[in-house]
């Protein structure tokens, strides 16, 4: 289902982290949020899954303003894979996935027949069935990430929110994870650090910088040399692969061997306007 973010602003601790952000993700599309650290990716996602109420603007999932829904109703529309989880490692894979049924549970918090079916089906689909009885603490980082994805899927969401889902995964697991997500057929909005991954998997790329959307569109339109230089402060060579997706080769904007030279160059480069001479 579609996601519309309309003019969202947010302050955290008196500091404005999102300025009038708007974006649209079409039904079934995979949207990648990219931007440097602190650009507001996680904050924007938090306004989508109701962890932070925006000061202005609306977030519409499937046409419904999520901030006018109850917490439970919103969580039946939107499944979330959080960036990190520090607790709950004593729970088994199955118990963790069953937590995804929380917004569907009735008064006494018991799993009914349908809940059990959904959990079993999700375990199957994510290839976790053989690990079902293992505690999270015994799993590898890649497996744990798959468990948290499975928990989000057990919510039976129409929209999947992923916050840095490929952090801490090795390259093979990054690719496997995103292949799995792509194959789900749900609308996805994901904050991604890896620009190559965004180029390879996203239908839409939204660039955030300093809490503002600075570019959005297809990977080919957005992930250009200019944007990569002005927003991320990196030099790049971009070409197009056989499927029409951009292929990125990134390198530092500055390659001075002397430290002082390097940092002054980095500072200049970071401040240079799009397309400007920064080197």
């Amino acid at each position, binding site marked *: 289902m579609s996601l519309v973010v309309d003019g969202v602003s947010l302050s955290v601790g008196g500091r404005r982290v999102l300025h009038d952000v708007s974006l649209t993700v079409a039904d079934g599309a995979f949207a990648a949020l990219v931007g440097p650290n602190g650009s507001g990716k996680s904050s924007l996602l938090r306004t989508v899954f*109701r962890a932070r109420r925006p000061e202005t603007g609306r977030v519409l999932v499937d046409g419904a303003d999520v901030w006018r829904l109850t917490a439970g109703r919103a969580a039946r529309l939107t499944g*979330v894979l959080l960036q990190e989880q520090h607790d*709950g490692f004593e729970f088994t894979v199955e118990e963790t996935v069953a937590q995804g049924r929380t917004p569907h549970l009735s008064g006494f918090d018991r799993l009914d027949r349908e809940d059990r079916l959904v959990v079993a089906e999700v375990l199957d689909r994510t290839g976790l069935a053989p690990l079902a009885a293992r505690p999270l603490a015994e799993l590898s980082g890649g497996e744990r990430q798959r468990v948290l994805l499975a928990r989000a899927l057990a919510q039976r969401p129409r929209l999947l929110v992923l916050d840095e889902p490929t952090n801490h995964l090795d390259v093979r697991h990054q690719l496997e994870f995103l292949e799995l997500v792509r194959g789900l057929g749900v609308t996805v909005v994901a904050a991604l650090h890896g620009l190559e991954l965004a180029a390879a998997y996203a239908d839409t790329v939204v660039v955030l910088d300093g809490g503002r959307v600075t570019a959005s569109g297809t990977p080919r339109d957005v992930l250009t040399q200019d944007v990569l230089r002005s927003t991320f402060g990196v030099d790049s060579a971009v070409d197009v692969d056989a499927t029409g997706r951009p292929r990125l080769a990134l390198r530092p904007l500055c390659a001075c061997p002397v430290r002082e030279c390097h940092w002054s160059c980095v500072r200049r480069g970071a401040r240079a306007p799009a397309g400007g001479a920064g080197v």
Partner: protein
Amino acid sequence: MTTTSAPAPLAADRRAAPAHLAVLAAACAVLAVSVLVATGIGPVGVPAGQVAAILADRLTGGGGTPGTADLVVWRFRFPRVLLGAVVGAGLALAGAVVQGVVRNPVADPHLLGLSSGASVGAVLALTSGGALLGVVTVPAAAFLGAAVAMVLVLALARHRGRLHPLRLVLVGVACAHLFSGVTSYLLARTNNAAAQQQIVFWLLGGLSGTQWSALPVPAAVVLGTCAVLVARARRLNVLVLGDDACAALGVHAPRLRRWLLVLATLLTGTAVAVSGGIGFVGLVVGHVARMVVGADHRRVLPLAAVLGAVFLVWADVLARVLIAPAELPIGVVTAFLGVPLFLLVVRGRGHRLGGDA
């Protein structure tokens, strides 16, 4: 989704449930035996077999065989032991709930100022000599004190409509100290020696003089609260994962925290009202229950309740035999018994203090 097979019971349920149920059943058996044995212990010793016979006779509607044993067991010891079990269960449950709410395994109702608030209420009633409501004055004042403390702590800990565990702990600790100061002030100001002695004993807790009439209200509160909490245990599990996880899984964290604190206050206020300020049960027992059955509150809460009951039944036995014919305050016993036990458990398991909590 097309899944045609019948819903098999989840693998983890199949495997784990019997083991945890066995632990709970064993704890219940220990509690039953403890109650029987503890009822027999005292200045007039009654063998457990005879206790069982007397109770069986009374509980099946018999009028009781006239005699000292029957009188001692039915009139004095049994209600006292039962109240000890109820109070222990209540305090342990309150501890386990507060630990979940503040995401910290070393929390208990004392940490949030609930117990010390109850003490202020009780001491106020004792020093003002107010017999306004007769014998219920002190319990009612204790309960009111706990409620006022909770409202105060909640109001001070709220920040922009949010209730963060760490802020809650900081505010709770500060308020607890304030309340202790108030209690000490009231104690110092009163020059009635008898009242002072009464207050000191009350602050340390005790179950002496328990009558049957003291039992129904606390028992109903503890059983009812336990049922509500167990029915909400899955949400409590999510709450421990943090506010983002709550939002993601559709749990309204601030509201759930508020409700759980109200229930913890109800339990603490009720326990303190009937037995005084018994410390350390919530901390020790909640913690031990977590070590035995893991993090899942569906298992932790019932086990904590039963273990808390066992713990306090035996603490009360020690309180009445150690310096017989006089009695020790039960709070002294829970400290002497609980602290070494706790240290032993903590040292024995190289355990983790709850991640970032």
